[in-house]
C-alpha cells in the first residue's frame, strides 16, 4: 500500500474543479504546457519520448502508443488524421465520459501532442451519441480553444494549423471498434473493415490515421511535462503509468479511481471501493469490461491491476472496467445478460458472429430457464470455437471469451440449472 499513499493522481486531478471547463483557468494552470513543449521538439522526438514512457493504449487492447504512431507513413502525399475514440460503450466502462465532462482541455492538449507527433492537421473526436452533455462540453472547449489561439491556424503560437472536428455516434457498440468507428465517421453504417491494412496506413477517408482512446490521449500532456522517465517510474515494468478504473456492481463506493498500474485488485476494491457491497461476500470480478474473462474470488486474491498480471490470471485488463459480483449472483443469468448484449450489438457482417452470438444467447437462456441439456455445454464450447478468430473484427471473440471462462470456472452452476430444471438462485 506504500505506493498508493504516495501516488498523486494526475488524470483525474481536476475532477472536483468546475473551473477546469474554463480555457483561461486551464492556460494559467499549465494545462497546455505539455503541448507547448512538444511543439518545440521535432515530431520524431515526441514519438520517441512517448515510446520511452511505455504508455499503452487505454481503449482495450493495450497497444504501445508511441509504436502505433511510428507506423504512420509520412510520404503518401495524403493528409494524416488523428481520431479520438470517445465511443465508450464497453459495458462497465465510464471513465472516458468523466474525463470529457470534467477535463476537456486535458484531452485537447493530448490531441495537439498526438497531431504534432504524426503531423496531422485535422483531428476528430468521435463521441457516442448518448453523451449529449459531453458533446456540448467539447463543443464549447474547442470553440474556446480556437478563440484563445490554442487551436486554429496557429497552435499556441506555433505555425501549425490544427482543426478539431466533433462527430457524434448514435448508439452502436461496434462503432467503438476502430475500423467500425472509421467507417461510421465517413457517414456509413458502422461496419468494421478487415485488417490489414491497419488504420495507421489506410484509415479515415483512405488516409493514414491514428486512433487513440480518450484516456490514452489524456496521459500525453503529463508525459510531456514530467518526462518519459517519470511515467515509466510508475506502475510495473511492462505496464507503466497509472490508469482510471471504473468500479461498479456490488461494491460499497462505485466510481472512477485512478491508481498506479500493478495495484492489487483487492486494494482497489477494499480501499477506494469501500469493500464488497450487496451481501458483502465476493463471488467474482470482471476485471476489464464485459469481454474480459471472469475472475473467481480466489483469483482476485493474487490478481494485480496490470496487463501482465491479469493475463496470467486468464483474463485481460481491457478498458479497466471492474465489475464486482457478490455471491447472490447467478452466473448463468450474468452471462446470459452479456450474451444478449453481444447478440444485440453484432454488426451482422460475419456469419459466425451474427449467428453465433444468437445461438449462444438462446442456449444460455434455455439453461437459465431450466430447460437445458448437458450436451448444451459442449455445444456452447463448440460454438465458441467457431466464433473465435473467424471474423472481420474481434466482437465475436469478445463474446466467446467470457462465455468460455464462465463455463470453465462456474461449470457446476450451469450443471445445477440443468439437473434441477430451474435456476437455483430463484
Amino acid at each position: 500500500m506504500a505506493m498508493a499513499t504516495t501516488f498523486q493522481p494526475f488524470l483525474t486531478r481536476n475532477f472536483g474543479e468546475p473551473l477546469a471547463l474554463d480555457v483561461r483557468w486551464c492556460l494559467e494552470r499549465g494545462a497546455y504546457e505539455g503541448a507547448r513543449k512538444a511543439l518545440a521538439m521535432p515530431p520524431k522526438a515526441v514519438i520517441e519520448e512517448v515510446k520511452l514512457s511505455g504508455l499503452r493504449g487505454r481503449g482495450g487492447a493495450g497497444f504501445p502508443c508511441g509504436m502505433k504512431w511510428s507506423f504512420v507513413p509520412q510520404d503518401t502525399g495524403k493528409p494524416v488524421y488523428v481520431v479520438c475514440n470517445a465511443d465508450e460503450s464497453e459495458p462497465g466502462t465510464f471513465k472516458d465520459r468523466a474525463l470529457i465532462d470534467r477535463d476537456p482541455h486535458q484531452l485537447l492538449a493530448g490531441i495537439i501532442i498526438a497531431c504534432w507527433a504524426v503531423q496531422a492537421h485535422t483531428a476528430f473526436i468521435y463521441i457516442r451519441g448518448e453523451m449529449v452533455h459531453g458533446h456540448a462540453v467539447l463543443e464549447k472547449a474547442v470553440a474556446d480553444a480556437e478563440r484563445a489561439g490554442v487551436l486554429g491556424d496557429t497552435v499556441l503560437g506555433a505555425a501549425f494549423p490544427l482543426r478539431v472536428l466533433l462527430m457524434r455516434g448514435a448508439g452502436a457498440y461496434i462503432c467503438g471498434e476502430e475500423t467500425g468507428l472509421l467507417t461510421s465517421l465517413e457517414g456509413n453504417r458502422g461496419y468494421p473493415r478487415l485488417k490489414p491494412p491497419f488504420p495507421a496506413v489506410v484509415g479515415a477517408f483512405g488516409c493514414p490515421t491514428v486512433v487513440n482512446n480518450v484516456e490514452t490521449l489524456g496521459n500525453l500532456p503529463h508525459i510531456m511535462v514530467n518526462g518519459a522517465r517519470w511515467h515509466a517510474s510508475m506502475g510495473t515494468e511492462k505496464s507503466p503509468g497509472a490508469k482510471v478504473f471504473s468500479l461498479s456492481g456490488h461494491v460499497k463506493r462505485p466510481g472512477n479511481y485512478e491508481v498506479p498500474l500493478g495495484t492489487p485488485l483487492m486494494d482497489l476494491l477494499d480501499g477506494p471501493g469501500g469493500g464488497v457491497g450487496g451481501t458483502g461476500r465476493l463471488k467474482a470480478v470482471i476485471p476489464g469490461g464485459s469481454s474480459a474473462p471472469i475472475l473467481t474470488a480466489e483469483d482476485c486474491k493474487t490478481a494485480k491491476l496490470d496487463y501482465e498480471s491479469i493475463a496470467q490470471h486468464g483474463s485481460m485488463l481491457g478498458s479497466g472496467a471492474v465489475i464486482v459480483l457478490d455471491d447472490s449472483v447467478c452466473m448463468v443469468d450474468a452471462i446470459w445478460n452479456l450474451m444478449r448484449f453481444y447478440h444485440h450489438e453484432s454488426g451482422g457482417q460475419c456469419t459466425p458472429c451474427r449467428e453465433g452470438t444468437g445461438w449462444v444467447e438462446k442456449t444460455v437462456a434455455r439453461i437459465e430457464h431450466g430447460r437445458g441439456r448437458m450436451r448444451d455445454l459442449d455445444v456452447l464450447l463448440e460454438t465458441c470455437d467457431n466464433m473465435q478468430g473467424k471474423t472481420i473484427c474481434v466482437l465475436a471473440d469478445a463474446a466467446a471469451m467470457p462465455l468460455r471462462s464462465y463455463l470453465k470456472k462456474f461449470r457446476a452452476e450451469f450443471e445445477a440449472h440443468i439437473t434441477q430444471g430451474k435456476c437455483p438462485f430463484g
Partner: protein
Amino acid sequence: MPFELSERSRAEIESLIARYPTKKSCLLLALRVVERQQGWVSLDGMALVAAMLGLSPAEVYGVVTFYPHYKREVHGKYRLMVCGTLTCALLGMKRLVRHIEERLGVACGGARTADGLFSLEKVECIAACGGAPAIQINDQYHENVTPQKLDDLIAACRREHAAGGGPPMPPGPVRDEPARVAHFLPALGLGRVAPVGV
C-alpha cells in the same frame, strides 16, 4: 404538411459541409440537425438531408436504421431509455422497469403511452455504471434511480409538457410507413423487393 428544414437547420448543415472532409461524412450530424428541429427523424427529413448531401434516400434510410439512438416517429415525446446491461441489471433494473411499466401502463419495448408523452425501451450500457441503475430520458442522464426518483422525473416531464415546453411530439407510428419506405428503395436498385407489410 410535409417537413421542411428551417433556415437555421439548412445553414447548420451547409456549415458542416464546409468543414468536414466529404459531404457524406456530415450525414450522422445532419440527421441530428433534423432531429433537433423536428423532435425526431422523419422520412421527409431523411430525404431532405439526402438531397443536401448528394446521397440516395435509401442510403440515408439504411444508415438511420443501423443506429438505434436516432429518435423516430414511434418514440414518445419523452423517450425513456433504461439500461439493461449487467451492472444495472445487478442493481435492480428489473424492478425499476416493472415500476415504470405500471406507472405508465405501457410495456418496455412496446407502444408509447396513449397521450404520446412517453415511450419505454431497454438500451445497452450507457457508460453510467458507477451510478447504476441508470436511465436516459431524451438527452438527460439520471443515475442511482429509485422508484421514487422515477415518479418525480415522470411528473417533471408532465409539468414541462403542460407548460408547453420540451421537444416537439413525434406523431407515433405512421400507418403508411412501409409503403413510403418502398419509395426509398428503387434508388438502391431494390425496387422489386416489397418490404414486409405492403
